């Protein structure tokens, strides 16, 4: 095959894989949550309820595509697309296995950070354009949360960058051949994980859509396919953060016996399951607690991690 054909196959294969996996994750999450809570979950459609997501999608496709008359129509329509596009763009730099990636960008890690901050617009604008009190409050919370947690999401990764000496995700994985970075960068990993939860608006950081105070937060006015886009965006986000955790701290595709791609997916699935386990076990904090936790605990921690890592690296070199 010519390089262009390989390129196109990679792109479309990735798109199909990400969309199918994310839709499948909805079923996976419901089954796993049910397991944690000692009930069955969806088990009627197909074997083990596997076709539940398909049934949901068919149902949602046939719903009326409704825009509230009081909403700001163009922004209302664009907002769900922004979330999906921003998260999918990040997958462009994810290094699945040697050679299996769309773009080997030399600032790949920064590109991921940039795209994850673009995702905030989708939520904030959805909240604003709905022209609804609850949506507006949800959008506000989302904007404040993303601005705060993005700061130390970037800072927590700089330790990894210093140890690998590159922003390139392939180089970062290759630098972990002797030791996975989660051992020397334990603090960085913890901070990144917390920030990842906050960026994807997952429990315990799902305050923008806190259903017991804001109806459904930023997507209160959304229905049909547009609502499904927010839902899908959330699951693509979970897959993305799990994939980044694997690449940055758990050696990416590295592992014995099995092929690289298999290792990558096994590791990513472990973290996706962890995301779901956390959803099943942690309560939601108040918003001021969320802010205080971010700025007073996570920021100093990530700064300290940065200074200590830099110091040790300099001391070793001299």
């Amino acid at each position, binding site marked *: 095959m010519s390089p262009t054909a390989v390129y196109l196959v990679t792109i479309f294969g990735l798109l199909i894989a990400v969309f199918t996996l994310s839709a499948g994750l909805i079923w996976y999450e419901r089954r796993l949550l049910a397991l944690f809570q000692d009930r069955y979950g969806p088990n009627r459609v197909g074997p083990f309820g596997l076709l539940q997501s398909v049934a949901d999608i068919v149902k949602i496709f046939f719903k009326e595509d409704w825009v509230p008359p009081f909403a*700001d129509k*163009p*922004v209302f329509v*664009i907002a769900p697309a922004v979330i999906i596009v921003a998260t999918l763009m990040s997958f462009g730099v994810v290094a699945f296995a040697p050679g299996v990636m769309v773009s080997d*960008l*030399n*600032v790949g890690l*920064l*590109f991921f*950070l*940039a*795209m994850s*901050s*673009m995702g*905030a*617009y989708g939520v*904030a*604008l959805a*909240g*604003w*354009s709905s022209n609804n009190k609850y949506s*507006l409050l949800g*959008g*506000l919370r989302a*904007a*404040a949360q*993303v*601005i705060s947690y*993005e700061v130390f999401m*970037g800072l927590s990764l700089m330790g990894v960058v210093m140890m690998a*000496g*590159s*922003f390139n995700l392939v180089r970062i994985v290759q630098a972990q051949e002797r030791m996975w970075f989660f051992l020397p960068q334990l603090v960085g990993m913890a901070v990144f994980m917390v920030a990842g939860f906050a960026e994807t608006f997952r429990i315990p950081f799902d305050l923008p859509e806190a259903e017991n105070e804001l109806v459904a937060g930023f997507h209160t006015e959304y229905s049909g396919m547009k609502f499904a886009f927010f839902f899908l965006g959330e699951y693509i986000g979970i897959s993305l953060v799990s994939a980044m955790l694997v690449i940055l701290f758990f050696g990416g595709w590295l592992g014995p016996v099995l092929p690289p791609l298999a290792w990558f997916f096994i590791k990513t699935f472990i973290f996706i399951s962890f995301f779901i386990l956390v959803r099943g076990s942690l309560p939601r904090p108040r918003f001021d607690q969320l802010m205080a936790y971010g700025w007073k605990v996570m920021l100093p921690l990530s700064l300290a991690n940065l200074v200590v890592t830099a110091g040790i690296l300099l001391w070793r070199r001299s």
Partner: protein
Amino acid sequence: METVFYISAAIAVLSTLMVVTRRNAVHALLYLIVSLLAVAVILFVLGGPMVAVLEVIVYAGAIMVLFVFVIIVLNIGHEAVRQERQWLRPGNWIGPALLTGVLAAELVYILAGRAAGVASGEQVSPAALGASLFGPYVLGVEMASLLLLAALVGAYHLGRRTTTRQEQGSDGIDKR
């Protein structure tokens, strides 16, 4: 690569024009974000991927989110749109348009006198960027950090609660 440059430059100019002429503040901001993204693509084409991504992270990703946040908090509605419509009367355009026209003429004059050399820059690696920032330009970095510190102290001063008020309510809530 040059076509990419011209396309994104056209998008940048167009969307910046839209920023100025929109009556709705949030729509104007959205065009500003598009403009910033277009500039990032230009920087990328010119061989500065690091600067391009930083442009997206800092301007499009952080500062503009803050702008959106503030505009949502202000809850600007139809009232503001009407006011904006009054301000954007053709009569008010003449002055700024003349001044911008002079600037544009100057730009064309400068560009016409030099050989066009777009999209020919070599790639600048992140390490090279860091080395030059903390090498020859370290004074600039330090001065910028001092400026930011002053802004931080100022924001802290404006945002803090006065001690007398805090004493009034034992739980820290103002009970006037």
